[in-house]
């Protein structure tokens, strides 16, 4: 790709942009300038590691916001933001029954921006659950699960379950009355399953009530197990969208 589409002219802005964007370091990162021709715009999408999730061009109904309401994208955005804020929370949080609550309380009072990070993580988690539901509804009501997208709908259902599981495991971590009782209620439901229930409960709690063992299990699932699985399924989800010929539209 060409480095620049325009020859540098006189004037302060041009001088500035020359110094800022045409130096050795900048160009070692970004090989090209702003892609201003259709050819370069397609190339940038096809060659950039992040953008190449997309096709280079797409049908114009799919750019219209009212077709998708960006809901899948917003869910993904929440997932990414939750990873960032979650990592910050991990710096200060120790998953032990006698510390967890104090750590979260300290986050609110002793740590700069701690409260903001916790709030963001909490509200975005709720946001992700809502947006994944809405995304499912939009896919359903636009009939976008129809052939050849059956399997991607199934991948979506798995992602929905994973999203709920992520939220559920995270709910315990503040170790306050809200979290421990919500999880107790949830686990009691799981414990009533015939045949497998008790074992399942024991497996998740590591004991008979929500205690230290449960906290460390939920924590591990929440910060690495489930996000990893979710990320893999998201990769499959996005890949399948491309393989199925982009988003669904009338035949």
């Amino acid at each position, binding site marked *: 790709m060409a480095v620049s589409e325009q020859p540098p002219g006189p004037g302060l802005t041009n001088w500035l942009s020359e110094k800022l964007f045409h130096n050795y370091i900048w160009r070692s990162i970004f090989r090209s300038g702003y892609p201003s021709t259709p050819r370069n715009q397609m190339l940038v999408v096809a060659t950039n590691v992040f953008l190449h999730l997309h096709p280079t061009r797409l049908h114009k109904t799919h750019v219209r916001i009212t077709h998708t309401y960006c809901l899948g*994208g917003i869910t993904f955005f929440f997932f990414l933001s939750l990873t960032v804020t979650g990592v910050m929370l991990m710096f200060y949080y120790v998953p032990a029954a006698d510390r967890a609550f104090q750590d979260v309380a300290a986050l609110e009072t002793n740590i700069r921006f701690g409260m903001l990070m916790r*709030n*963001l993580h909490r509200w975005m988690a709720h946001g992700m*659950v809502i947006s994944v539901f809405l995304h499912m509804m939009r896919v359903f009501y636009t009939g976008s699960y129809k052939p050849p997208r059956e399997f991607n709908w199934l991948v979506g259902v798995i992602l929905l379950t994973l999203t709920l599981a992520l939220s559920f495991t995270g709910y315990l971590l503040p170790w306050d009355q809200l979290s421990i009782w919500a999880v107790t209620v949830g686990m009691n439901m*799981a414990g009533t*399953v015939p045949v497998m229930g008790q074992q399942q409960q024991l497996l998740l709690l590591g004991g008979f009530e929500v*205690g230290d063992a449960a906290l460390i299990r939920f924590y591990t699932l929440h910060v690495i197990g489930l996000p990893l699985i979710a990320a893999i399924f998201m990769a499959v989800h996005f890949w399948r969208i491309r393989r199925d010929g982009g988003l669904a539209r009338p*035949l």
Partner: protein
Amino acid sequence: MAVNAQAVSSEASATRPRREREQELLVWPDLVFVEFIAAMVFTFMFVLLSTMLDAPLLNQANLDITPNPSKAAWYLVALQELLLHMHPALGGVIAPTIGLAIIGAFPYIDRSNDGQGTWFGTPNAVKIILFSGAFASIFTVALILYDQGRHVNVITNVVQRSDKDWQWPGKLAPFQNVRSIQTGWEWSIPVPVSAQLGPGEHDGELNWPDDFTHVPMPFNGTSGPDWMRWGPPTFLPAWMQAMYWYDLNMNTPAFVVELFIPVAIMVILPVIMILMMRKLGWIHTMRDGSIGIFTGMMAVYFILTIIGAGFRGAGQDLVMPWDVPHID
């Protein structure tokens, strides 16, 4: 030949693809721009929200102090609501699992291409959505109100104005709430004494509920003629023993209340709903039917969540939202 092939291919590439191309936009800048704006808007919105609204943090966890009510996270509150009305395994695990399985099965049930890629793509889609949404919401609310039994208080109050001693008649117990079928309802039918085999009283009457609480399961090893009686299957591995219904007797009234009636309602109501819409001439394809079922499921989930989160107070009693106690 060569000339022909060229004519065909040049025609193909000259007409159809071009029309396709004209419908297409470039991802950069058109889509990337929308994505960027959406990301910015949401970052901004949530940072703003987070500076204004703090995440809750109650007292430190303590398993000795049970908050009343203790509720699950809001997206599980719908299941918690179901627990109040049926067997916990059915409401908390089996029904939701089947629900999820049905959602997953839609593409395999509805394999047609009608309405693909357009909002509400079939002619009657909007009507079906409104009808099934309303149908599911109304019946969910009605069933919850029935099972809560508030109408019993209201009617008792009204009737007691003229007749001080009036009580809800035992014969009508099933109309109080579903649990009353098991606990508040008594009737008996005469049977020959010789036909009464069970462990209950052999008094020539079959009494509900007492004579129905210990009905032996078939092949439970401890009932029936001699050849059907045997010891516990200790030769099996433990997990298999746990699955075998040795010495199990069925509590029929509990079974009817906790499993049979709820399952029957959850099966029959959707069927009636679909049949009604077929009668109305709205449902012609699997797609139409799927829209009805999906919308109904979403509506039930939504209503259960609203009621569970906003209308359940201490002891999971049905109260107005402002009477739901704050937990700390």
